[in-house]
């Protein structure tokens, strides 16, 4: 069912795209703003020895093409340079932060996909009803919310006035836990508000896409065939319509990864969640370019791989895929 040639073709495209991103990133940080040394090894925080070591590592006194090959070599050895603010290798800092972001995004994604798709199916199945209309309006309102502001309002409502959940960080500072369960519970409490924020803002899109795809699918002839077979509507809906609507939903999920990364930056900023997003925010404020550069590359690669995965899933689910 899965055609090897097609997967290979997609994989080649992904590799080309990755190289394009790497090159784009390289040029952006080296050619455009003028003095590369100012950006790569901004003086002030670093010792002269450290600067000259970076200069050698990135070949900063060599021509641009040579620099590019140095850059590629460094990437493959995991060398992203030094952070100005933390004075540590960027790769180490990223490694500490990634897990925290993944936890947050995973929690939010599960909620977004499950509730968003379910709401979309309900709305499409009762198209034109009061339920449908209120779901559509709710989704459009959710879609219009700025993520960071939603976070701020939740902080005020549930954090400050109600004091239901902690509003900052990933663990209670200075707390000691008797068991790993207590530690998990503490993490869970900290997760609630950031997750709700992300879920609210991104759920609308899923619901709307699911709904419009399904409304489209429900006009197809094979839906009539299903009804003619004597199947009750819910069987036609879940057995025939939803499997066909899944395909666009998978594509949406890949686009959603790009969106949710943007959301993570905002949410982590608001809730001081020590992940990649908060790292980027801090790096922006301090103009810590090595961190920004590496984070951007990492996030772009994540989105590209997510797209690749969705393409593969599409091929698995849709028997019709022949040509990419």
């Amino acid at each position, binding site marked *: 069912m899965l*055609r090897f*040639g*097609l997967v*290979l*073709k997609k994989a*080649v495209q992904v590799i080309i795209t990755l190289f394009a991103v790497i090159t784009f990133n390289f040029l952006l940080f080296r050619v455009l703003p003028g003095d590369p040394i100012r950006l790569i090894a901004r003086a002030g925080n670093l010792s002269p020895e450290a600067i000259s070591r970076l200069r050698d590592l990135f070949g900063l006194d060599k021509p641009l093409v040579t620099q590019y090959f140095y850059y590629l070599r460094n990437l493959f050895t995991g060398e992203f340079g030094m952070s100005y603010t933390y004075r540590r290798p960027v790769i180490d800092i990223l490694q500490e932060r990634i897990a925290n972001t993944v936890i947050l995004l995973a929690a939010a994604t599960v909620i977004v996909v499950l509730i968003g798709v379910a709401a979309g199916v309900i709305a499409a199945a009762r198209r034109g009803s009061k339920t449908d209309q209120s779901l559509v309006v709710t989704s459009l309102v959710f879609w219009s919310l700025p993520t960071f502001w939603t976070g701020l309002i939740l902080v005020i409502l549930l954090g400050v006035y109600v004091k239901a959940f902690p509003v900052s960080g990933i663990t209670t500072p200075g707390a000691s836990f008797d068991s790993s369960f207590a530690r998990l519970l503490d993490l869970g409490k900290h997760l609630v508000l950031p997750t709700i924020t992300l879920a609210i803002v991104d759920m609308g899109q899923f619901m709307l896409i699911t709904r419009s795809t399904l409304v489209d699918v429900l006009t197809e002839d094979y839906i009539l065939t299903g009804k003619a077979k004597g199947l009750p509507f819910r069987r036609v809906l879940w057995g025939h319509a939803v499997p066909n609507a899944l395909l666009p939903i998978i594509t949406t999920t890949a686009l959603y990864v790009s969106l949710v990364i943007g959301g993570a930056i905002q949410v982590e900023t608001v809730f001081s969640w020590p992940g990649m997003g908060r790292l980027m925010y801090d790096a922006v404020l301090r103009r810590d370019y090595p961190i920004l550069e590496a984070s951007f590359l990492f996030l772009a690669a994540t989105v590209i791989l997510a797209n690749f995965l969705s393409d593969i899933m599409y091929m698995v689910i849709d028997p019709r895929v*022949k*040509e990419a």
Partner: protein
Amino acid sequence: MNPALLSIKDLKVYFELRQGLPLPWREPDVVKAIDGVTFDILEGEVLALVGESGCGKTTIGKTLLRLIEPKAGIIQYRDQDLAHLKGVSLRAMRQKMQLIFQDPYESLDSRQSVFDILAEPLVIHQRVTQKKDLQACVFEALESTGLHPAAEIAQRYPHHLSGGQRQRVAIAAAMILEPEFIVADEPVSMLDVSVRAGILQLMLALRHQKNLTYLFITHDLSLAWVIADRIMVLYLGKVIEIGPSDRLIHAGTHPYTQALVSVIPSPIPDRSREQIILKGETPSPVHVPEGCRFHPRCWKFQRLGSPKECLTQEPDLRQVAEGHLAACHFLD
């Protein structure tokens, strides 16, 4: 017999199918849509091109109008070779040849009024410069295709018209440049049966008034029989039989033609007629069978005990009677 308006010699149209990685050592699959056809279209005649879907009939029509690029062959139009025309001379030739499409819901721009649809060819070729003349031309074209009152119809948009009216507008737009040669690609198959006759009558009347030549593409042999002077039958990108229409229907010699004619449904029910039902379906034009391309489905081939010629040798068109040719090793 009239002289030929178009002479087509060994015309080939191939399409490449691309799948997977474009690796240099991998030969792309080639669809041989038109695989070497030779025929004439005589001045003033209606030549019907019939065959099943995928036989290449629409491709021939569009290639003659240079909407599809031929891979090889000559398209001689009077004394010019259309296959190699370019630029200005091609644009000039386009005025002499027009296309009428199958689907009148699709072939008109829904954002243009009928007036704009009809005026556009004149504007493109700068035939008319005065606004008043433009209006006169458009109204005349509408009247001549039976769309009255012209002034009112001209203001309408296609969605205000019925299928038959739209097809009349499409015909008027094709006629407004006073062409000589028309390719009509299934012009009535999307229309309700009761309005088909009107469109066909209009096309035939215009043929006499304006001395037109038609290539009439259809899947319907019985329709070809009533409208065309000659019928040409295609199978998998090859001409397998060509001849005067009544002869072809009632005295067709190629086993494929005979089978097609035998299954034409008739509005006068007669269950005693014998049908020749071919097994299976037309093979893909990517993998054309060796020898005679029809042999895997040929009833005569089976009846004659699989003769070797059919397996190894592609039959050429041979004369059966005056103006009647067929490509089979075992003609009656």
